[in-house]
């Protein structure tokens, strides 16, 4: 197996040069890049004013994508320093400290009987609040904020039954399940009032 050492040297040199080039962009290149970005940003969204939009936070639970209305969300946060609380239902994972406030974290996967994944550092918490009640909803991944047209939202699917159907606001064509935060927060099942006897 003869090795074409000159070719190897050439390739190595080319790679090194490419890295150099990437790390030390010329002013012209920088300008070119920024200009390209600006151009792409400058493009106007198509006829969005005429329609009703829902702003939602898109997140992942197990293999399904869920969304929750932005107006109900307070903030998103990393799942840090979770403290399990005894004498609570299984869907209550525990409590966390978010900017000095203590919130309980609810795992909707257990609530919705979805397959359970282990907790990781990648898990996020979406803080929702209503009428002074704050709650942390566990999300596997947060995809981001989206605006979806109201008309795209379809009523519940026949496959979605049980408890999920109760909290459902609608489903998009992309199988994004939009939850009704009002119902979720006002549901007495989720409110825990138990006393230690």
């Amino acid at each position, binding site marked *: 197996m003869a090795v074409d050492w000159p070719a190897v040297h050439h390739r190595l040199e080319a790679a090194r040069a490419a890295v150099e080039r990437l790390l030390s962009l010329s002013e012209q290149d920088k300008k070119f890049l920024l200009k390209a970005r600006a151009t792409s940003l400058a493009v106007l969204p198509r006829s969005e004013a005429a329609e009703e939009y829902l702003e939602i936070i898109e997140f992942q639970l197990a293999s399904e994508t869920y969304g929750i209305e932005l107006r109900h969300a307070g903030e998103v946060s*990393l799942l840090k320093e979770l403290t399990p609380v005894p004498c609570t239902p299984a869907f209550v994972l525990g409590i966390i400290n978010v900017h000095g406030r203590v919130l309980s974290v609810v795992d909707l996967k257990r609530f919705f009987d979805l397959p359970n994944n282990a907790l990781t550092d990648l898990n996020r918490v979406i803080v929702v609040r209503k009428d002074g009640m704050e709650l942390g909803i566990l999300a596997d991944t947060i995809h981001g904020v989206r605006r979806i047209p109201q008309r795209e939202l379809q009523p519940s699917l026949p496959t979605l039954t049980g408890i999920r159907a109760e909290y459902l606001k609608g489903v998009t064509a992309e199988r994004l399940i939009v939850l009704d935060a009002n119902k979720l927060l006002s549901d007495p099942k989720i409110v825990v009032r138990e006393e230690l006897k």
Partner: protein
Amino acid sequence: MTSSIGAKIGSGFGLALAILIVIGAVSYSSTAKFMDSAGWVAHTYEILDNVAGFLSAMKDAETGQRGYVITGQDRYLEPYRNAAAAAGQNLENLRRLTADNPVQQRRLDALAPLVASKFAELQETIALRRDKGFEAAAKMVLTDRGKEAMDQIRQLSGEMQEEENRLLKERTQEEKERAQGTKSTIIFGSLIALIFVMAAGFAITRNIATPLKEVSQAAQRIAAGDLLVDLPATNRRDEVGVLTQMFLRMTQSLKQMSEVAKQIAKGDLTVELVPQSEKDVLGNAFLAMVGDLRKAMREIGEGVDVLGSSTSEILATTKQVTTGAAETATSVTETTTTVEEVKQTAVVSSQKAKRVSESAQNVAQIAQAGRKSVDGTIEEITRMRSQMDLIAESIVRLSEQSQAIGEIVATVNDLADQSNLLAVNAAIEAAKAGEQGKGFAVVAQEVRSLAEQSKKATVQVRTILGDIQKATNGAVLATEQGAKAVEAGVKQATQSGDSVKALAESVTEASQAATQIAASSQQQLLGMDQVASAMENIKIATTQNIAGAQQSEAAAQNLQELGHKLKHLVGHYKLPASESKPLAMRAATGT
């Protein structure tokens, strides 16, 4: 004639003996008388001698006396002294010898006083001469007393001599007569005895010698082989008669034997023979001979049969030998050709072996060079191993650096995540702000997009890092394998070096072997030459074998003819039906 020959001979000899005894007796008496007469003659001569001696002694005495008287010397008395004794002795003898003759006795009686007187006179004279001298003695002598006595003595002595001479004459005559008588007795007696003995001898000879002569003549003829002798039959019962009879019987037996021999000579072996006695040597020998001849004839017959078959076999064998020899000759020719080919092959193999030896030397040199190059290869590979170590080190460092990059990327990812969250929160805040927060929402959207891009970039970088990691792992593995390969290469090269060394040794051995092969081929060539010469010898021997086999064949044919002749000869002999009878006879006769 019943008396035996011994008796006959004895009677003849007895007659002769009796005659001899008579003659002997007569001769003895005649001889005895003759001897008596001769004794008397001798007696007479003795007396005469004594008389003469006496006279001589007397004369000696007188001579001695005279000498002494004359000389007076004692030594002259010697004869006198001796004569005295001698005269006495002679007288004594005469008295004894003439005792049978009274006349002579009387003369002796007369002589005695005379002798005494004479000796007394001589004594006296001698004594006188000694005592009184010569004169007295001469006077005494002159008395003639001595002379007278001496004369008387002489006279008496002469008478005695005369008497004796006369007696001698008488006696000699008588002796003569007696001798004549004896002679005639012996002559006549002998003649008579001769006649008798001759007569007896003639009779005995006639009685014994004639038949013996006849028998001896017959024996002579038999000795000469003539058995047709004819002896007259005799009824004599003495030894001669028995001899004759036995001789006749012997002749008959011999005739019988000769008849048997004739039959045997004619070839008739069926003859029956009875031996004369147990000690019949000839008969038993004949019997044994006949038996042996039968046996021999049978055996010869069998032998001839065997000879015939053997001859046939020999003929067959000789034919086989001849054909075999011919085949051998062909084979020998083929072998010779083969040997020639083998020789050429040996030459070729010798040359080949030489070439192999040369090329083996070349190969040994090449192997030497190969070993050197293998050593160089090992050195190179060792250097390569250190290079590989350097490569592995570099790759490990690269891997570590990519780990650092990974950490940086993780940080960037974390930052991107946090930016994303921040962007979401910003969007939430913007939403809270309502219409006024719309621009902020756009910024938040933009931030989020950047975060997404960063995240994607980090993902890409991570992927690339993973690829790099994989590549470095692969490189490390490859380097490791390379190192192993280098190790294996070193081992291989070492083995190659050993192999090359072994190859060189093998080649050296091969070279030696080739040299040995060349030498062996040379020896083989020599050996093949020897084989070729041996083959030539075998060829000659085979030719001789063929000639010998042909001679053998001729000899075997001669042998066959001889067998036929023998068969023919044996066929002449008549044999009894079985062998048992002669054997039994032999057992009975004890031979």
